């Protein structure tokens, strides 16, 4: 595929791997967090970590929008999906995330009309095709997907579609990063910045990371060469004693972001005082809800939503795993109460989460060489 294969060139990959090797200080252990779930996926799909020396460790961050949705909110979604006459729409991978009593897939099996959509606009189309049914969209994702939800709501308003509403579980990326960085026991050397989020918000919002916390961040694209190059850029900053925000993904990310998208976001959404993250707990100003002006399209107001908080089991240590303080297998519930078939924390929910990956491939993953 043109414009894709160029960024997956194996020879260039080997060259970058060589460069990374030359930037590594022998004996030093590096922990670099890829913030975004999309990066985790690419790293896994192309075996990018297999090209790194074992003392360059990639830590999977909190940026998988599906895995961070807490059980209570999944329960809210299921409660609305179970209301008679409702067509409940959501993204495919959200359907598998467990609530306190099963997932949306289970609710579907039990009779709820749960449908997978590829875009919020598909949900709006379903609403227009079924004027006698209430159609609810379960909106999740970071600043990457929030603009498309916002535009869909604007369109629903403009076209006067009355039977459409949305449960807004959109989140923002900076607050959880700040929460991670605030932790005194943090063991991270640098960040691979979320390229898709930065397409919307720009690179500037990440400047606090080098400025306040002394860690470099490189905004990165999603092809394997993008990721390797970003790792090399982070290691070069560390080797040269620099600490700044760099933009590897210039072909897509403007430093100032997408101003029109930001405008739409601020029109349709407002910050929640706090939002709960699976495994990380409550984080201030980290979630979005519909603004006053769009309150009539808010499914949380239109339907009676239980809104009951379901606590993560106390023993779950996803937060520590994310901060790089402990390894997955050091968590008290790992492999016993928490398994890929019956996950508790965010790191076990997605097959690419740190704990699920370790559960499935642990023995294989330890074969890399230490420089």
């Amino acid at each position, binding site marked *: *595929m043109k414009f*894709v294969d160029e960024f*997956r060139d*194996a020879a260039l*990959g*080997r060259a970058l791997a060589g460069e990374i090797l030359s930037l590594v200080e022998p004996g030093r252990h590096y922990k670099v967090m890829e913030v*975004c*779930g*999309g990066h985790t*996926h690419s790293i*896994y*799909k*192309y*075996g*990018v*970590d*297999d*090209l790194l020396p074992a003392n360059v460790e990639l830590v999977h961050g909190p*940026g*998988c*929008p*599906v895995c961070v949705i807490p059980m209570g909110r999944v329960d809210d979604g299921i409660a609305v999906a179970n209301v008679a006459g409702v067509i409940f729409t959501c*993204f*495919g*991978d*959200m*359907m*598998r995330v467990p609530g306190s009593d*099963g997932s949306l*897939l*289970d609710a*579907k*099996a*039990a009779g709820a009309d749960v449908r*997978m959509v*590829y875009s919020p606009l*598909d949900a709006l189309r379903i609403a227009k095709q079924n004027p006698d049914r209430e159609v609810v969209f379960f909106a*999740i*994702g970071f600043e*990457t*997907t929030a603009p498309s939800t916002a535009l869909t709501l604007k369109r629903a308003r403009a076209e006067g579609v009355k039977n459409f509403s949305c449960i807004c579980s959109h989140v923002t990326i900076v607050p959880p990063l700040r929460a991670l960085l605030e932790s005194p026991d943090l063991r991270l050397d640098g960040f691979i910045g979320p390229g*898709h989020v930065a397409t919307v918000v720009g690179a500037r919002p990440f400047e606090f990371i080098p400025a306040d916390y002394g860690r470099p961040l490189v905004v990165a694209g999603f092809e*394997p060469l993008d990721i390797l190059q970003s790792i090399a850029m982070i290691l070069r900053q560390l080797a040269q004693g620099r600490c700044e925000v760099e933009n590897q993904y210039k072909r897509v990310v403007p430093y100032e972001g997408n101003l029109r998208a930001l405008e739409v976001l601020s029109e349709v959404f407002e910050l929640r005082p706090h939002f709960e993250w699976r495994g990380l707990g409550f984080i201030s100003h980290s979630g979005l809800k519909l603004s006053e002006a769009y309150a009539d399209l808010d499914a949380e107001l239109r339907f009676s939503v239980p809104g009951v908080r379901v606590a993560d089991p106390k023993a779950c240590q996803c937060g520590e795993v994310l901060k790089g303080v402990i*390894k997955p*297998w050091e968590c008290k519930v*790992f*492999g*016993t109460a928490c*398994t*890929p*078939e019956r996950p508790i924390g965010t790191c076990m929910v997605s*097959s690419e989460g740190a704990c699920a990956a370790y*559960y*499935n*491939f*642990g*023995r*294989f993953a330890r074969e890399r060489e230490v420089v």
Partner: protein
Amino acid sequence: MGDSAAVSEREEKILAIIETARGKRAKFRDERITMAHGAGGKATQTLIEGLFVPAFGGAALSEMADAGRLSLDGVELALTTDAYVVKPLRFPGGSIGELAVNGTVNDLAVAGARALALSLSLVLEEGLAADELRAEVDAIAAAASAAQVEILAGDTKVVERGHADGMYVCTSGLGRRDPRASLAPANIRPGDHVLLSGAIGEHGMAIMLARGEFELDAAIESDTASLWPAVDALLDAAGPSLRCLRDATRGGVASVLNELARAASVAMLVDERAVPVQPAVAGAGEILGIDPMYVANEGKLVAFVAPEQAGEALAALRCVPGSEQAAEIGEVRSEPTGMVLVETSFGGRRVMDQLVGDPLPRIC
């Protein structure tokens, strides 16, 4: 030093616990059937290993091959059955009727048996247009004649409107096992070469696009076809060096390899660059976030061949119409047992795991 030794000891212990848990026969504990139970991955396996095999017992069933074996007065037979519930009924490259014949013929073929006879049950929805039924009957007749197999028995049921998506088709097949064939997962040995009979992912992708849920158009046609000619050519070329065959249907090539790696207690190493994928399938997979390795085929098989005959087997396969793109995609290793590793086109290595549920498009 003492600390790190203690730590790695603990890690070893936990890894050992996980391995024991993974090695145990799957238990069926779910409260309801979900779509995942039909997707061919882990959930399907739980259902079969945890519910069906314990209930129905027999040694032949617990082999979990595509077809069961039986001997009758010295005649070696194979028996298989399958239900077809595809939506839409007609799709680019084929239809449910054609699928119902080829799928059952193929389950016999990869067990080393040539189909002798099929039974056919139709479950029809009230209101189905007669022309649609007529078209499927014609498709069934044409596919049976192409595969040189006779329809010997049949049944028809009609269910109320709203059920059966137009029609469901069930076929059972009886085949005679070819004397040249001695195929079983247990025959697979480290060093065997893995052959694939052509480009992957076409059937599943054609169906996904034909459903029109994604507003994505691409010229992708189902690969539904009888695999007997390919099996015949492989048996001729490799004889007893042909260790095992599977058709890569639901769950795709990745699921077949995982199933066999576990069944034969071996590892497999796949070279991603060697796996033929049509550009349109690769492109659709890229957009939908679905790996073609997990997408269903209806006319592709995976063959395990002893190294000394692998070249000849591949050459023979490529002479079969429809298998021109056949390729050697990897080899069998001894370690890590039960796992499938992929050398990615980018040069890294990773584990290619079993599918957990339905392949769902990703948002990020």
